[in-house]
Structures are given as C-alpha cells and as structure tokens.
C-alpha cells in the first residue's frame, strides 16, 4: 500500500499521539540545549549568555498565547494549538531557567526576577495539573456547566425547592417537609458554600442532608415521599453545581495568580537584560 504523506499529515491525530509528539519535541529541545550549554562551557564560551537569550526567546513565545487571544484575526493557528505550545514551552523555560540561574546567589534583582519567574511557572504548572484533573472530576459529576451559568441554575433549583416545600403543606400530611426545608434547606439552597468547600469540594453535606431527608419518611405519606424524592434530586443537583463552581473558581483563581505577575516579570526581565548587556565582558 502506497503511503500518502499528505493524507498522513492531514489525518487527525489522537490526543495521545499529540501528547507524545509534543513531549518528544520538548525533550529534543531540552537535549539540544544541554548539548549547546555543555559545548559552550568546555570551550570557555558564554553558556550563561546562551541560556539567557534562549530563555528570553522562550518567554516571548510563552507571551504569544496572550497576544494570540487578543488578535483573533491573525492567521497563525487556533488558540488551542498555541495553548499546547505554551504548555510545553513552559517546561523548556523551566529547564533553561535552572541552567541559567543554577541557584539563587543573593542578588536582589536576580532574586526578585527568579522568584517571580518561579511563581508564574509554578502556578502555570498547577494550572496544567488542574486542567487535566478537573475535567475528569466534572465529567464524573455528570453535567457540563459554564461557570457564568451556575448562579442562574442555582437560583432555579432554589425556587424549585421552595415550590416543592410549599406544595407539601397542601397535601394534608403535616408540615414536616416544609419545616425541614425552612430549617436546613433554605441555607443550603440560598447561602454560598464555605471557603473550605471552595478549596476542597466534598459531598459530605449532601450526604448528611439526604440521610436526614430519608429519616422524614415515617412522617410522610405517599405523595409526601414523592415530593421528598424531588427535593432530594434538587439537593444533588445543587451540590453538583457547587462542585462545578468550586473547581472552576479554583481554575480561575490560579489563572489570575498566573497572570498577575506578568507585567512585573516583563519589567524585571527588561532591567535584567539591560544590566547584563551593560556589564557583560566583551573581548
């Protein structure tokens, strides 16, 4: 069978294949960098300048993701591709950073620059981790919800729960379900979840509420139990929305932390490069 190269190139690659290729390119770049640094070092060359300029170039490449997002009209590939480039170039930048800096030696400017770089790189790596971990957890929840839609849906669930509680009083089976709603479910549906839940979301509260709703069965009739089941569904949906809210906010918070030092980093890089070029020994 004749191999059609054009078809091969245009054939959509699997996610696994994309990752393998990306990592291979990254490791190749790292290997070339290490060889160049070693060669320059043993030949009394300026390996520090090489790693410095390389790091500067990679940083500009990393910044191109943000530029690409603003300039949608540019025919330079989709943002998704640039995001992948951003991720693997970030790994390369960390290797270059270690080769360039080695270890902090006490210079204030260098310390600020290095710390900021490591902060941004660290948040970036955590973002990368979250971007791989959160979708799996959210898929396990079973719904695909945009963060901005969550308040509306929460409001919707809260109103539905109120209507079910109100309906239970009209069945002639007492006000057990309505009382419980008044005491336990109103805070659950209307108040925001705790900060701890925002950091480490769990289903402990949902389990407790569902267990307590189950204990109400002895006071409810057949119709009341049907209403109780509907309220239980709303409790589950509300909790799923809360998990979505917590995890997506984690992602957004880390993104904020990742971005917040960019201008400072750019400024410090400029000062550092200016100083280095001023003091680098020529000849």
């Amino acid at each position, binding site marked *: 069978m004749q191999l059609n190269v054009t078809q091969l190139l245009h054939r959509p690659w699997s996610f696994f294949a994309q990752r393998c290729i990306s990592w291979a390119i990254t490791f190749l770049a790292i290997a070339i960098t290490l060889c160049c640094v*070693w*060669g*320059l*070092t*043993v*030949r*009394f*060359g300026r390996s520090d300048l090489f790693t410095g300029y390389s790091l500067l170039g990679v940083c500009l490449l990393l910044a191109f993701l943000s530029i690409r997002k603003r300039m949608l009209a540019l025919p330079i590939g989709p943002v998704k591709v640039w995001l992948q480039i951003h991720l693997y170039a970030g790994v390369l930048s960390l290797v270059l950073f270690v080769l360039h800096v*080695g*270890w*902090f*030696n*006490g*210079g*204030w*400017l*260098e310390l*600020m620059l290095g710390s900021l770089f490591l902060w941004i790189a660290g948040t970036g790596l955590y973002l990368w981790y979250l971007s791989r971990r959160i979708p799996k957890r959210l898929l396990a929840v079973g719904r695909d919800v*945009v963060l*901005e*839609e*969550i*308040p*509306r*849906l*929460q*409001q*919707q669930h809260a109103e539905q729960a109120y209507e079910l509680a109100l309906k239970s009083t009209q069945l002639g089976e007492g006000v057990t379900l309505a009382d419980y709603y008044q005491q336990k479910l109103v805070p659950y549906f209307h108040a925001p979840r705790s900060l701890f839940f925002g950091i480490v979301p769990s289903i402990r509260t949902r389990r407790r509420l569902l267990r307590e709703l189950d204990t109400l069965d002895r006071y409810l009739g057949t119709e009341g139990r049907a209403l109780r089941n509907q309220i239980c569904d709303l409790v589950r949906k509300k909790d799923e929305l809360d998990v979505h809210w917590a995890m997506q906010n984690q992602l*957004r918070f880390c*993104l*904020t932390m990742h*971005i*917040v*030092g*960019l*201008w*400072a980093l*750019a*400024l*410090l890089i400029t*000062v550092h490069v*200016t*100083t280095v*070029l*001023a*003091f*680098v*020994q*020529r*000849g």
Partner: protein
Amino acid sequence: MHWKQWDTPPKYFRPADGWECGRLRSGLPCACGPDAQGRCQANQALKSGEDLTTCKPRRSLWWRRRRLARAGGLFVAGILALIIFLGGDKEFLAPGELTSHHAQILSRHTTENRCAACHELEATESVMAFLTKSWSGHAVDRQQQSIKCLECHQHALPNAKDFSPHDLPETTLAELTRAGSGSMRLTSFASVLPKQALEGNELACSGCHLEHQGRMHDLTMLNSDRCQSCHANRFASFTNGHPEFTNYPAHQDTRISFNHQSHSAKHFASKGKSFDCSSCHLDESQPSAVGPVGRSVSYEKACAACHDAPLRSSFSDGILVINLPSFDRQKIEAAGLTLGAWPEEASLMTDGTLSPILRWLLASTPRGKALLAKLPADGKVTDLSTTDLESLRLQTEIAAEIRLLVEELAVGGQPALQKRLSASLNPTSNSESGDGSSTNNPAQVINRDSQMISGVSPDVFRAAWLSWFQDKNETIAEVTFPKSPAAVVGFGRPSPMLDEQLSGQDPLLEQDPLLAETPVDDPLVAEPSTSKASTSKASNADPLNADPLTENSGSATFGDGNPAKSKVIALPDLSPQMHLPHGGWFVDQRRMAIVYVPVGHSDQIVKSWLTAATSKASEEGSSHFKAMLAPKAMGACTECHKIDHSAEYSVDEKYLWHARESDPSLRAFTRFNHVPHLTLPQLNQCTSCHSLQEDGRFKSMQLQNCMDCHTKQGAGDSCTQCHNYHIKLRR
C-alpha cells in the same frame, strides 16, 4: 423579556468585556448587558417596549485581573525607579553575593565603593551612571577586568599578567604540546570538540573564575572537560585514557648523595637495624602520626650517628690554606739567582704542590696570575726543571710571590685576606678599596666573602712569617710588625720601628713598661733589644725566641734562662687532633703550611669557600677552583654534596648544601599530599607506592597505583585534583 422565558438560555456572557451585568452574580442577568462604557443597556430595551429593569453594571473579572497585573507591574516599576533614579543601593544590580573570600576583603569598604573596587567605575556614581557607563563600554573589557583581579593576586600569580594558558610562555606551551600530542585518543566526546573558543592570550580570569555566584561558591572549581578542550592529548577520564606515568615522582638527581638501596640492604642490615622510612621522613613533633611527610631529613638526625666520625677524620689533618713548596736553593743560587728568605727545610729540593687555596690567593694579583699560568694546572712544582734557567727563575718568582702574600697577610690581617679572596672572585670590584669589600656587589656576596675569613687570626700569619721568612741573621729591629700581645708574649719580637711611631702618639703606650728605654724588668725583651751581635745569645735565652714551631719538638724556658730557676715545659708539635679538636687555624711546621681545621659538619668557612669556588669553577683559567671541588680536596664534603650546574639554581645555590625542599612559592603541574593517603591502611607503608631499583633510585609509580581509588565514584578523578592550572616555575 426575561431570560427565564427564553427557550435556550444565553450560553456566553462575554467574559472578556470590561463590564458585566449587575445581576449576573444573582443568577438573573439580562440578555442586553452593559455597553463598552459600562452603561446598562436595559434603558434601550425599555424604549423599544421590552419588559426589563435596569441595573448597575460591574467590572468583569477579566478586567480586574488585568488591572491587578498592571498594578503589580507598576509596583515593581516604582521600586526600580526609586533604586535607579534616586541613587539607591548599587549592589541591587549585582547578580549575586561575592564569595566569602572576596566578601571579607571588601567588608570594610562602604557600600558606595565596594563595586568600584573591582569594576572600572567610580564609587560615587549612581545606579543609572553605572548602567550608562557600562553601556558605553567603559567597564566591559575582559582584560581590564582581569588586570583588576591581578592587582591583588599578582604576588601569588606573577606570570598571570600575560593571560597565557598556564601562565607559561608561548614557546614552553608549544614544546609541551609537541611532547604530549603524540598519542591522540578519541576516547571521549570531548575529543571531538572543536578548538576552544578563546585564542592564545585572550584568557581572562572570568573565563574560569565566575564571581557573584554566592558566598559558598568555589572559585577554583574547573570542569575537567575544559582541560580536554585545549589539550592535544584528550582522554575520557583518569581511569580511561590518562597517559601512563613515565617519570613520577620525577627522577632527578638529589642534591645529597644518598642511596636508599645500599643503606637498606647493606649498611643498616649489617648493623642489624631496620630501615624504616618513617624514622626519617615523618616529623615526630607533628601532631599527626601520618604527616606531613618530609622529603629530607637533617644530618644530625639521619646521618651523624654513622657518618660524623668519618667526616671528622677526613678533616683531621686540616685543609691546606697556604703551603710552601720546596725549592732547590743550591741549584737556584748556582744559576746565579736568589731564592731569598725561604725556610731551610723547604730549600733542599724542588718538590710539592701549591694548594688550591694558595693558588686562589696568588691569582688575585696580575703577577700571581701570570706565574700560575706558567705552572701545571694542578699546581705541582715537582715537575719543574732544575736545570732550565727560566724554570729556576719561575721558582724564585713563585717563592717571592708567596713570601709577599704571607707578609701582606701578616701585616694586613683579615682585611688583606678578604681583599685577596674577593679580588679573585669579583675582578670588577674595587680592589683598591683596601677593605676587601666590593662596593658594587650585592650584600649576599659581601656576606659570603666575610664568612670565608671569619675566625682567622693575623697572629697565624705573623707566626708563619716569623718562622718561615725571617732572616735569622737579621735584627729584630728590622721586623716591622705592630706591637701586639701575641708579638710580645708569643714571639718576643716587638717592633722598635713601630714603637717609635706609636710612642709619640699614644700616651698609654708611653707609660707602658714594655716600651721603656731599658726594660730591665722584662727578661723577654731586655736582651734582644741590646745589639745585633747578641741576637744569637738572646735567642737561646728567650724560650719563645727559640720558636718551638720551627722545631720538631722543643722546650720553652720561662724565667731568667737559668734552668735551675726557670720552669721548663715541653712544647710538642701542634697536632690538629690534639690541639684543635674543635677546629681553627694554625701553622703546621712539618708541612710548612697554614692549615684550617674545620669544626666538622656544616663548617661555615669550608662551606663559603666551596660555594665561592663553585661559582667560579666553570670559568676559564680556574683550575684551582676546580681542584677545590675535587673529591677529598676539602675533606669529605663533596662525597655527599653534589654540584648542580643546571640553570635552575642561582650561583650561590649551585653547591647544593641542603636537600631539595618543596618551595611553597612555586606551583608545579602536579601536586600530591601524602597525609590523606597515609591514613589508608593499605597505603600506610611507603613501599606500597615507592619501590627501589637496583641502582638505588626509586621506580616510577604506575598509573594503576592511583586508579584503584581515583575513580569518579571513589576518591574523584577531576584534573584539578592533582594538577595545578596556574604554574609558577623557578625560572
């Protein structure tokens, strides 16, 4: 229309806009949203009849995130502006802390001038001026920076100023390269590297020693691959490809002759002693039992027990300084020539050899040098003809020159002797100065010349003159020595002429009873001063006048000459062993010579003579100096102490009195520390590395000796562990 009434709720809320609907957080946003200026669009919808309530739009998260990033940038910019433009701490720009060594040197400097101590900048300049000046290229030249380093390191690295590899001249490097490039081995990736990035003299200090790398940074750390990139003979590692040792430790002739093999197998074995290396090479006073290891040991510690007696025995007869050869007076006078005052004992036949030191002294004058040129090189007069008139004349002239020399020394004492010695050694010195010192010579030479004559008494020369050359028929009054205790007491021949000169000048001498017109109380001077005719009688009466030195043995009578009243003592011949066991000068009447008996090992006078002779031995017409260096010519010195004529040593070091010691100011290519090796049980015996050959030399060590331990995972195999980069050779 409210969004709850929509069939499909809005999926996108324009998160990248600067404003968002005021009801978004409550879950009830409108579909219109705010405009770009943050105004609610619900008013427009109301005008068109839609059922909407207005809200107060809020800033979006995206906008606030961007604003936060810009605020961070501005904050950092503010800090930098404060530092750069308001003259803040210039060390803010430093890439790191200095190493502790440099930091403590600069710790007393103020912050303003700490940077300027090493960089070509002025201490008062601001950070902006720092940058501006640096950008102008004022402070970036590597050589200039290195010169700054050498301002402090010049003493330790005197040859580093040329910035050549290993601080060596180009010719030396070329020779070393030729010697080492014979066996190129492509056993390392380093071997395929291109040539180094730097040429010849472009090496700067910062090429290897990078500062501002933190307090604990090792500035001397050097990657072994860097060595490989320059070296012609490249190899993978010490254990893989390093050239075999061919001469390590270096086979160099030692300054002191010592055969380890014969001492071990023969001398020590015959005495039943163990030949233990540590007994000589380890200093017992050191706190560590394993070091430091000394390359040599003192004579007193190692040699004296066996060699002191033979050495003293070699000096037992002393060293001839001035000896009288024998001339045949009868044949000389038969030829119509006059020998002059010359001892009868040395006037029977032509025989003898001028001692090397005598020839040295004679060569100090042009006339003496011319006479020596006519003699055989070994100074023998035995072979001179007794029939040839010229030869006989030469003999009379030599006798006269020797007589003149002794007379000069008898009159002038040490200064005259020094003048003679120095005149031969330093022909360009001011020979007319009279004190023998050379005004243009360095202090070292003056010190050496003064060592050569230290301790010699003029009385020795006077006694020699009196016993050898004084005409027995001549009156005492003709002797022109100055008055001295020795002259008076020892020989009883005061000089009337000098007495006359001095008596009118020195009031003390005028009152001296010894100088009285008629010293009737002094039996030593009474009779000799009466008349020429009574000389012979006086000689008999004066026990000292009957000079015991002129006889094989004799007696001296103290008193009035009457044996019944006087005390008579027997004066045997002077014997060095008996009379000068601790060394000194004396007149040997049997050998007709002035003799110096050394005190034993390390005699400073003999040492200075030999040192001086060595400095002149290689010159033309210096057979007497060469003769001094011949075996047993000056005792047994030259049996152990060997001359090194290599250009490595200065003139006065050529006679190598001391064993080689490593000079801490020098840096060879290879260094080795015994102490950490001797702590290992398998290496605590010296013979585990150093084995002897048949000829007594040590075998060269094998690479395998070191490779067992010096691996990358073991004791380390970096080049700088055993090799120095900065080399400082003696010359």
